[in-house]
């Protein structure tokens, strides 16, 4: 009895110090993010990247990290909330710099479809090389509905739904195939999709479609925000929305993973025969994962397109799908958290390399290859399923 009390006390003190650790860690990341987005100075960008690299190399080797990680695991809710606040803080700190804000939104809005792909590929093992196609389906749905004066909120949701519906066209092939054969199905669909949009003039053809800025029940997103005397860029609106979306998707994916559903997904991914032999309904699991993923892609696509104000078929090509897949793999297959650094690398770094003009993609490609060779499991590899905080021991 007494021992129990003692351990409790110890646990509490540990958790207190852990909480501090969590706060400090997140604050540090926030600061880094702010600096990275805000600056355009070559040496500063380089320095920040080096810092990040060192962190990624050293952190797994430092012994204290184990305890640190536990701290995060124990204060899951707090950590997520704080991180969201940190990102919001970065958004506020950049209030009068539209470009960094736009990049922040882009990163957040790329994370959402990647969470979708994580549910499909990382959890249920369904390869999807048509992410951009479903992203695009959402975008075009939103565009068409907006032009018909449908309320934008409805349009955005519809984007997700339509994407899921279009996805159901592929369900039969998806269920019959595995691995690279399934991959081909989606590759074929992705190419088919963008080619069709380009050739067919019904939806603007190659010249694309214009969209209005989002207007959520009177909240006009394309208006600069006037707070007191200060005028904040209208992109702040989009930061708030994208952040909310990304956060929701993240929490959702986490909860799916940390539940019996996530378990079923894993079983299907790792060994279909065994899963079947234990009564798990493989078709159900695959359809569920596939539909959820496409829904997320569609929603994000709708918001993204309205933020961009213009969409054209070559925003949604096979190449774009590969970008999404790259983010998912680079982050560490199956770990939504890894998507954040990965998205930064894939989306922002090429823009930071603008100053070397035509050489940037060469350097960028080499950079990614090296990152993967140095971290074959991705930036933040997935860890064992911890259904509820602290249950992993």
């Amino acid at each position, binding site marked *: 009895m007494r021992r129990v009390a003692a351990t409790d006390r110890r646990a509490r003190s540990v958790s207190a110090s852990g909480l501090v650790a969590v706060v400090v860690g997140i604050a540090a990341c926030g600061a880094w993010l702010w600096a990275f987005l805000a600056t355009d100075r070559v040496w500063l960008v380089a320095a920040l990247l080096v810092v990040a690299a060192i962190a990624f190399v050293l952190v797994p080797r430092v012994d204290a990290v184990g305890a640190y990680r536990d701290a995060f695991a124990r204060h899951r809710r707090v950590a997520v909330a704080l991180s969201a606040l940190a990102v919001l803080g970065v958004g506020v700190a950049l209030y009068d710099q539209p470009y960094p804000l736009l990049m922040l939104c882009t990163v957040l809005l790329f994370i959402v479809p990647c969470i979708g792909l994580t549910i499909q590929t990382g959890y249920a093992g369904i390869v999807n090389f048509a992410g951009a196609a479903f992203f695009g389906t959402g975008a075009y749905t939103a565009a068409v509905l907006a032009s018909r004066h449908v309320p934008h909120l409805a349009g955005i949701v519809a984007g997700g739904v339509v994407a899921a519906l279009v996805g159901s066209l592929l369900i039969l092939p998806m269920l*019959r195939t595995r691995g690279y054969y399934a991959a081909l199905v989606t590759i*074929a*669909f992705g190419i088919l999709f963008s080619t069709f949009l380009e050739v067919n003039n019904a939806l603007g053809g190659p010249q694309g479609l214009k969209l209005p800025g989002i207007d959520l029940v009177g909240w006009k997103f394309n208006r600069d925000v006037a707070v007191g005397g200060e005028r904040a860029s209208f992109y702040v609106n989009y930061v708030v929305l994208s952040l909310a979306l990304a956060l929701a998707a993240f929490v959702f994916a986490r909860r799916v993973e940390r539940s019996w559903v996530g378990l079923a997904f894993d079983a299907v991914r790792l060994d279909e025969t065994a899963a079947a032999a234990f009564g798990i309904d493989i078709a159900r699991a695959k359809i569920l994962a596939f539909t959820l993923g496409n829904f997320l892609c569609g929603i994000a696509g709708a918001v993204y397109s309205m933020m961009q104000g213009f969409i054209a078929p070559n925003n949604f090509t096979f190449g774009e799908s590969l970008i999404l*897949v790259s983010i998912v*793999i680079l982050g560490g297959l199956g770990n939504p958290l890894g998507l954040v650094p990965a998205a930064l690398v894939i989306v922002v770094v090429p823009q930071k390399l603008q100053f070397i003009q*035509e050489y940037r993609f060469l350097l960028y490609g*080499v950079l990614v290859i090296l990152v993967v*060779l140095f971290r074959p499991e991705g930036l933040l590899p997935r860890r064992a399923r911890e259904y509820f905080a602290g249950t992993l021991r």
Partner: protein
Amino acid sequence: MDAGVLAQYAFNGLMLGVIYAMVAVGFTLFFGVLDVIQFGHGDVVMAGAFVGLATYLGLGALGIAVPAFAVIVVACAAGFTMALAGAFIARYLVLPLRTAPAFNTLLVTLMLGSVLRELVRLFYPNGSNPQPFPRLLPAAAINLGNFTLRLDSTILLVTGLVTIFVVNLIVRRTRLGLAIRAVAQDSETARVVGIDFERVVLVTFAIGSALAGIAGIVYGLYYNEVNFDIGLLLGVIGFSAAVVGGLGSIYGAILGGFLFAALQTIGSVALPVSSAYNNVFAFAIVIMLITWKPTGLIAEPASERV
């Protein structure tokens, strides 16, 4: 349309098919030994073409202008360089990732592709523009009504088929081929019986990439033009062909290659709607085929032990 035109379509289709098949065979070989997809393979083809081009210009500088001789040197140069490149790729990009999820190989090879592309674009003189590829083969042509049979195209078609046939022989008849197939069957057991796994992998990648290099030359000599960005689409099509045919099977890859060529030809001429839909058509059919035969037309031997 008359017989001549049909013959013309058929011949064009075959020519296209042989190029696709050469690419697809590479994919299927790599998958066989390592269960990975080398997504940069299309750009290896492109690189092969440019190596050949550079070699030709080099020969010109040396004052050697005998086409017959030049074409052989060019082809060998491309094949050999790409073989080395292939072995290098296997050794430093693919093998290190064996333990990691298969997807990471995918990401790395994708990036490899774009790196190759950018390298050529930036460092080959005026590389962002299409480059003329020399006409090294006799251009004599026979006209049968609407059908123009050109000697050079015929030579290329035959060359392509022969190269594939040779690769097939190597894999089916030689001891090396035996090793390759052993590894493809079950790499663990192969190791146990003392096959040098890594060596086999390197050699396989060398062979597949050499084939790609030669494909690049065939491409260049057929179209008399190469561009730095032909790789991505060639890669996707080669991959599709290999998968539709059945990964791991050489015959499957060949079948897939010709099938895809046929689909594109039909798509651009026989479709009631605009020919621009030909890729929509081709890939839609691909999806249907895969749904119908989920492990490819020539299915790999299912080895699911329960």
